[in-house]
Structure formats: structure tokens, C-alpha cells
């Protein structure tokens, strides 16, 4: 019916300016005249975006938080009007923009399915016919007759996705909402999306470049509201990752005295054998690393000040992104206002509830051999393998003291020196997952 080259979505020179502090009269006047707010009067979230999707194509949109991905999606769905340019959509669009939007919390899952489906133009009769399929897909069991306010976020997204999957959309737009489901449901969604590609157009937005690469032929990389790069998904994702890993990459020339780890990692360090496989699946444990915040909460005597904390790759490149199970180097750089007799530098990693997961310090490695050399900057480096972290927020606390672990003066303690946000991951239980050296399962026959 449609030719292969027919366009599904065309985005031409689109820009979006959000008004900021405009008087209501002025907003109404602009609205009545259909005249968008000028870029100078508001916040320009997107500027000059152009791309197009052919029918049957799958395109991923990637970019960091605040790059304008959600704004772009909202405009394609038609919930937001572009300030300039034009968006043309051919076909029926179904979108999962945000968790549970369009659901009425007071009503049951079943009632919400009917309402939600009728928003997509399905008649009651059509929903009756598909209800069994929808409920089977969502797998929420008896909860279907409970108000959706009692649902967990996972059940919410399962039901929303199940409805979406059964409304005969020509174009599906999926935001990162999938990340809330469990791994099993994610797999199911991925299978559905793979099958959907046969008949429809898919626009997929994610942080997770591995699923973009797995699903999409094309990718558009947004950066600060502009298209940074677009084209073949793999190429775009690779340059995106390269850019992420390269941020904060500043070489600093500092005088350092070295505390060498007693047991330096070498090539013989065992590796979790599943790691290679995990890294290429959607169970990959992506950890986003936020930059060191020197203004964070801290306390201490102040004779030494923690100047910088960073997570580096094993070859010393600063990381804005790390994958659980990878080898990393945590560096803590301390500026000394006066020499310390027995400096100890240490860190803790805490989860979002403030539970300490692990930590270490330089004491054992340096207590037997006094630190040689001098300088006004001290740098401690901890080489270790990043554990797998369950999804959530984590922080590194860094500290420098003078003395020994039993008796010392705190010179500086920074609570949330580095923040991490974890997504996905293979952790099946416990607070962290350790890279296993080997996992074996074997049958034995033992005679009675």
C-alpha cells in the first residue's frame, strides 16, 4: 500500500523556545496570534533540528540529560508546538513518553485500559477483543481490578506498554520508560519492538547506546539542543560514547608523591568470564559518573584540602561513564597547606540510603614504608574492579587525615565527592554484585 521510500516523520528546521517569566497577557497575546516567543525572551531548548524517518525505519535518539530529547519527542507527538520549523507525521502515532501518563490513578487497570485505548481511537468492541492479549502481555494478574494507584512502577509501565502494543500504531515513540521494567519484561518489550519493526516505524530514545545499537538502523545524537551527528546507528553511538568518555579530559601538571598500591593489578587478574557477554547484552551495568563537586558538604581541620576526585579508566582517562565489572582507578588529589606526618587518604562508596558498600584507604600500603619525596599535592590512586551496582544513585565519599586508622586528625572529608547513577545490570541479589571469576554448574551421579 505504501511505497518503501514514503516518509513517516519529517522534521524540518525545528526549534523550540520555552517562555521564561512572561506575563500571562503576553503569553495569551502570543497564543492568539500564533506567534512564538522569540529566542531571546526564553530558553531555547532546541534549534534547527532536521531529520526524517522513512516508513519502516527505526531511529534512535541519543544524548545526555537536557539535550532536548524529550522536547523533540513531545513535538513529534504533537503535545508541544514547535516555535519554528515544521513537523509532518504520516500515520497513527502511539507514544510512551512518561511512566503512566494518561492513567487515572483512582481507576482500575481494566478501566484504564479501556480509556487509554479509546484515546488511541479503539472502540469498546475492539478493546473487548484484545483485552485478553493486553492483559497477558502486561502480566499484572489480579491487580487488573485494583486502582492503578496501588501499582508498582514496574506494573505501571507493563500495563502502559501492553496497551501501546495493541493499538495498531503506525509509528511508535518510546522514551526511556522501559528502563523501569525488570529484565524479563525488557526482553519481552525488545522482542515486541523487533517484531514491530517489520510493519511500523519506531522512534526510540535512550541513554543506553547498546539497546539503540541493537534496535535501530539510524541514530540522531542531540547535544545542547542541536543535532550533533546523525546517520548509521553504530557510528553515531560510537562517537557519542567517545565524547562521553572524553569529557572533563583535562591534563593537569601537578607535582605528586606516589603511594603505590601494594598489589598492582596486572594482566593476570582474573576477569568475570561472563563480562564480555554481559557488556554486549542489555544487562550491561551502565554507571553514569557525575563530575566532582568542590562545593559539596565537607568538614575537617583543613590543613589538607581534597582538590579533586575522579574516576579514571585503567589507562588514566577520566570517565563520565563506566560499566560495572570494568577496571577503574579512583584518584583523590589533595592540596597540602602544611606537611602531614602520616597522611592517610581513603574513600567510601555509599548507596542512596547512605549504607557504606565498600571503602579503603592508603594506610596498609604506606604504614611500613614512609612516604618518600615531597610536594604540595598528594595524589592517592585506588585501582580496582568496579562492582556491578543495582540501579540507583551512589556516591563516593573521600577523606584525608593524619595519623593511623585508630587515631588520626580529619583534615578534610567530602561527603558526596563523586556521584554515580547505575542502570540495568545483572545483580541478582545483595547490595552489589561482584565480578565472578568462574561460575559452574555440573551434574554428578552419586550412588545411594
Amino acid at each position, binding site marked *: 500500500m505504501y511505497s518503501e521510500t514514503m516518509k513517516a516523520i519529517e522534521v524540518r528546521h525545528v526549534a523550540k523556545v520555552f517562555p521564561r517569566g512572561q506575563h*500571562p497577557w503576553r503569553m495569551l497575546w502570543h497564543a492568539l496570534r*500564533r506567534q512564538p*516567543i522569540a529566542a531571546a525572551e526564553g530558553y531555547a531548548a532546541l534549534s534547527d533540528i532536521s531529520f526524517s524517518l522513512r516508513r519502516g525505519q527505526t531511529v534512535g535518539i541519543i544524548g545526555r540529560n537536557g539535550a532536548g530529547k524529550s522536547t523533540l519527542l513531545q513535538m513529534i507527538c504533537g503535545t*508541544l508546538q514547535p516555535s519554528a520549523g515544521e513537523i509532518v507525521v504520516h500515520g497513527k502515532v502511539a507514544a510512551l513518553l512518561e511512566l503512566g501518563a494518561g492513567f487515572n490513578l483512582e*481507576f482500575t487497570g481494566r478501566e484504564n485500559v479501556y480509556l487509554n485505548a479509546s484515546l*488511541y481511537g479503539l472502540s469498546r468492541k475492539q478493546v473487548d477483543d484484545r483485552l485478553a492479549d493486553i492483559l497477558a502481555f502486561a502480566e499484572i494478574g489480579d491487580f487488573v481490578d485494583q486502582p492503578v494507584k496501588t501499582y508498582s512502577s514496574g506494573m505501571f509501565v507493563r500495563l502502559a506498554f501492553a496497551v501501546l502494543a495493541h493499538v495498531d500504531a503506525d509509528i511508535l515513540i518510546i522514551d526511556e520508560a522501559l528502563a523501569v521494567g525488570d529484565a524479563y519484561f525488557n526482553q519481552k518489550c525488545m522482542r515486541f519492538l523487533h517484531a514491530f519493526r517489520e510493519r511500523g516505524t519506531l522512534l526510540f530514545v535512550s541513554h543506553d547506546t547498546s539497546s539503540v545499537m541493537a534496535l535501530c538502523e539510524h541514530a540522531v545524537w542531540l547535544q545542547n539542543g542541536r543535532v550533533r551527528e546523525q546517520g548509521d546507528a553504530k557510528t553515531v553511538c560510537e562517537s557519542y560514547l567517545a565524547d562521553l568518555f572524553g569529557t572533563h579530559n583535562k591534563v593537569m601538571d601537578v607535582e605528586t608523591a606516589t603511594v603505590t598500591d601494594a598489589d598492582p593489578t596486572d594482566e593476570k587478574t582474573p576477569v568475570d568470564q561472563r563480562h564480555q557477554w554481559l557488556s554486549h547484552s542489555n544487562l550491561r551495568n551502565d554507571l553514569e559518573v557525575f563530575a566532582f563537586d568542590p562545593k559539596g558538604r565537607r568538614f575537617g581541620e583543613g590543613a589538607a584540602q581534597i582538590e579533586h576526585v575522579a574516576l579514571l579508566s585503567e589507562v588514566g582517562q577520566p570517565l563520565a561513564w563506566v560499566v560495572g565489572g570494568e577496571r577503574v582507578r579512583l584518584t583523590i588529589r589533595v592540596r597540602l597547606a602544611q606537611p602531614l606526618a602520616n597522611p592517610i587518604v581513603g574513600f567510601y562508596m555509599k548507596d542512596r540510603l547512605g549504607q557504606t558498600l565498600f571503602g579503603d584507604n592508603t594506610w596498609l600500603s604506606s604504614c611500613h614504608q614512609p612516604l618518600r619525596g615531597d610536594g604540595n599535592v598528594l595524589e592517592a590512586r585506588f585501582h580496582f574492579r568496579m562492582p556491578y551496582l543495582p540501579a540507583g544513585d551512589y556516591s563516593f565519599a573521600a577523606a584525608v587525615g593524619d595519623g593511623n586508622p585508630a587515631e588520626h586528625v580529619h583534615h578534610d572529608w567530602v561527603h558526596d565527592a563523586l556521584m554515580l547513577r547505575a542502570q540495568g545490570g545483572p545483580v541478582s541479589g545483595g547490595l552489589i554484585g561482584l565480578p565472578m571469576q568462574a561460575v559452574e554448574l555440573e551434574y554428578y551421579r552419586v550412588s545411594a
Partner: protein
Amino acid sequence: MRLELLYNLTMRAVQARYRGSWLGLGWSLLGPMLMLVLYTVVFTEVMRAKWPGLADEQGKLGFAVMVYSGMVLHALIAEVLASSPMLIVGQSNYVKKVIFPLDLLPVVAVGAAAVNLLVGVGLLLLLNGTIGTGLHAAALALPVILLPLLLFALGLAWLLAALGTFFRDLVQLTNFAATALLFVSPVLYPKSMVPHLMQPLLKVNPLTWPIESLRAALVNGIWPDWFGALLHIIVFAVFARIALGIYRRVQGSFADVL
């Protein structure tokens, strides 16, 4: 398809109002009845008011029917006045997060209010039919009497919803307007009681014609004047169409101001 969606949403809005309450839909009967008892007691017992032209043997019940027929119509407009300005603000999910025909939202609100109106009119018919002046053939004209009011309510809902999204102060004004409308409309008194000088003011009040026509038809069995009906329908249909035009023109900017 839009009609089915409209129906679903309206039913849902009606249900949502009473969901979780023990009496449920019964409240749309009990609520106005309590008000009715209150007004009747205050006006007939305390203020000893008499409804002009009402025979003595109709007594308190006659008074109640007169007041109630004004109240059910006023309640529709009062509800639109009170709820429309915050209609979009309160349902920003529909604006920002789903693809939704936004011009339906005010229609749903009016639809839900109209369900209450129908329950009220039904109660009125029952009350007057059993212990009042009885059922009259003129009651068949009910749709013609209610249609202009519904058109006016719809126009008002579109207009206020559009403006209220931009001006959050509007709802304070319309709350006052709803109460004021009770006293400046012939709800608690008949049109004939209003001094000659103020009659023109009463004429431009959109509630006057429907209330007077409803009383005439239900209580006295007098058919409405058809020319007046046609005139009101045309005027309010034009008003509603203009309001819808304004609403559609600005609805694209709702997402920017929420």
C-alpha cells in the same frame, strides 16, 4: 470514535466525582435536596416569603418546586463557572503527556454537569408530578428549554478553560460570579417581582429565559414561546462556536504555560 471517547470520559468524570464515597451517585440527588429543604425552610418559615401567583393550597411544596426549578439550572452554570478556569491546569497530563483531543475536556466537564442537571430535572418532574400540579404535556418541550442553556454552558466552558489556563486568578472571579448569579437570576424569586427599571438587566441574563420557561412548562403546563427558543438557541450556538474558535486557537500554547 470521538463520541465514544466523549461518552467514556464523561461517564468516568461522573463516577470519579463520587468514587470512594458510600452513597455514590445518590449524592447528586441528596445534595440538591438538602439545599432545597434549606431554602424552603428559610424562605417560607423564617422570611415568610410568598411566591406571587402561587395559590395558597400549593403551599410550601409549590414554593419548593419554584425554587428548585431555578436551582437545577443555576447549578449547571455555577459548576461550569467554578470548574472551567482550572480545567486544563488540573489535567495537565492530558496536555503534556498524551496525544489527546484537548477540545473535548470542556465538553466532558459540561457533560458531567449535565448528568446532574438531568437527575435534578427528573427529580423535579417526579416531585411536581406526584404531589404538585401534576404532569403536563408541555414537559415534552424540556429539550428545547434545556438546549440553549447547554449551548451557553459549553461556550462558557471553552472560553473560561482557555483563559483560565493563562490567568490563574480567573477562578477566584468566577467563584464569586457563580454565587452572584444565584441572586441576580430569577432563582429565589420570579421574574415578575423584579422592579421595572431592572427588567432589561434580567433580560440579558442567559438564565432568565430557561428558568422562566421551565417553570411555566412544568408547573403551569404552558408551552415555551418558540420564537424565544429559536432566538436563544441561535445566539448561544454562535457564542459557543466563537468560544471554541478561541479555545482551538490557543490550545497549542497550553503546554508552554503549564
